[in-house]
């Protein structure tokens, strides 16, 4: 039994805690997250890096929800085809969501995972929060 436990420990570091970055509704219902640096990440991450990540995320969501010529054209075209065009075409928002997913994966690989953190894509939490999982510091004990 003990072996099973340590095997599991090696496979997956224990979760120490989770931080939730909330939405910023200052400019309306558009998707924006607060750039306030959570104190729990103080020991792990640079304030500037965190702000950069969140700011880029905010920019990507802003682009997805932008009201402009392109979105109006897409909307009108879709309406004329009784929205059947979405059976074959991806919406602009969906394309941006894929871009955001790639960005988060990239950030996790380069910045967050080496520091024992994990960003969760906000779409998996209903676009309500950016969940940052803080893993236990691996340098303390190996559980072997």
């Amino acid at each position: 039994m003990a072996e099973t436990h340590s095997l599991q420990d090696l496979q997956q570091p224990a979760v120490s805690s989770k931080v939730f970055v909330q939405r910023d509704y200052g400019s309306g219902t558009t998707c924006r997250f607060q750039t306030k640096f959570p104190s729990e990440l103080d020991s792990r991450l640079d304030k500037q890096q965190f702000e950069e990540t969140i700011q880029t995320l905010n920019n990507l969501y802003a682009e997805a929800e932008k009201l402009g010529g392109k979105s109006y054209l897409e909307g009108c075209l879709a309406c004329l085809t009784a929205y059947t065009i979405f059976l074959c075409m991806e919406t602009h928002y969906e394309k941006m969501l894929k871009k955001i997913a790639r960005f988060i994966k990239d950030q996790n690989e380069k910045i967050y995972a080496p520091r024992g953190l994990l960003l969760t894509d906000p779409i998996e939490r209903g676009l309500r929060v950016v969940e940052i999982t803080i893993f236990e510091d691996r340098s303390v004990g190996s559980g072997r």
Partner: protein
Amino acid sequence: MSAVMITRKVRKWEKLPGKNTFCCDGRVMMARQKGVFYLTLFLIVGTCSLFFAFECPYLAVHLSPTIPVFAIVLFLFVLAMLLRTSFSDPGVLPRALQEEATFIEMEIEAANGNVPAGQRPPPRIRNVQINNQIVKLKYCYTCKIFRPPRASHCSICDNCVDRFDHHCPWVGNCVGKRNYRYFYLFTLSLSLLTIYIFTFDIVHVVMRSVDNGFLNTLKETPGTVLEVLVCFFTLWSVVGLTGFHTYLLSLNQTTNEDIKGSWSGKNRVQNPYSHKNIIKNCCEVLCGPTYPSVLDRRGLTQEDLPVPVASAAPSSSSSSSSPVPQTTHAVLCLQKTKAPLIPNKRTPDDAKPSIAASAQKSPSPKEENPPAPKAPPLASPEMDVETSINKDKTH
């Protein structure tokens, strides 16, 4: 006591809380009560069928063949909009998972400070400033989240819906951020269709009466009477509704806000979401970006079902000294259209094992929902699993 774990892959819609019904393996999402929706469908299809059967042949010959063609196009558009409104996710906000709910609770308690015993804690409200207007965000005790602005909890569907407009029994679904434009286009096109059929019914009766006489006309095309009746009553309600929603659209308000009088102007409260420009408001709602569903209904997740095994079980080892891990994972990919959480009848024994199902369960590597030992986020389905397992055993 040992337990055999059966891990099966389920679609996420099967585990969603709330009172929605799902069809086509999660592609279709509706409210539970669908009776009025079937009535709507019946009225539209029935009336149009009568029109195509009785009026169209005469009008195509005596007036123009474009009349039935346009009617067909309009009819198909109405149906498409109705089905799109009824079957799509209105913008349901998923409930908070356990950790998020705990985090929010801790924040609330920190903000409230020490509440003297016997006193009620202050209401859970967050103030946000949007475009120089203070908006209060209320806490939803069911979903355990602070509702975003303009979201509201639908008691019929038991979900928080973003930009909640109203729950419409005629379409059998809530109307919210994602399907408001389809709902509006449905009411608009239905108004046009009703006016169209009504007008051409009258034209047809007049034209035919000139030749044959009024009573003979009614005898030849009895469907006309029924159509005129249906259209007459539909006209007043649907055209009125379209007018009301056009008004709301131009002000960028929801029915919910209108009923509550959120932006009625008293106390100098103004709608912070309005662009103060009718065209821009309409364009944003009707031609704005199409928001994706955040529910991921058809995503796969794992569900662990603890199936207790009596100690005399031959196949799966119950002795603790066995090198084989105690949990055997039989991954069953089951795709069902209904969501029974009762495990299939492949439990090795139907002898009465003890209820200590949760006795020894090592946590499975990774899954969306945490296993039963931790407080599950979707409390009710997990409980149903346990009780249904218990029910199964007692047979």
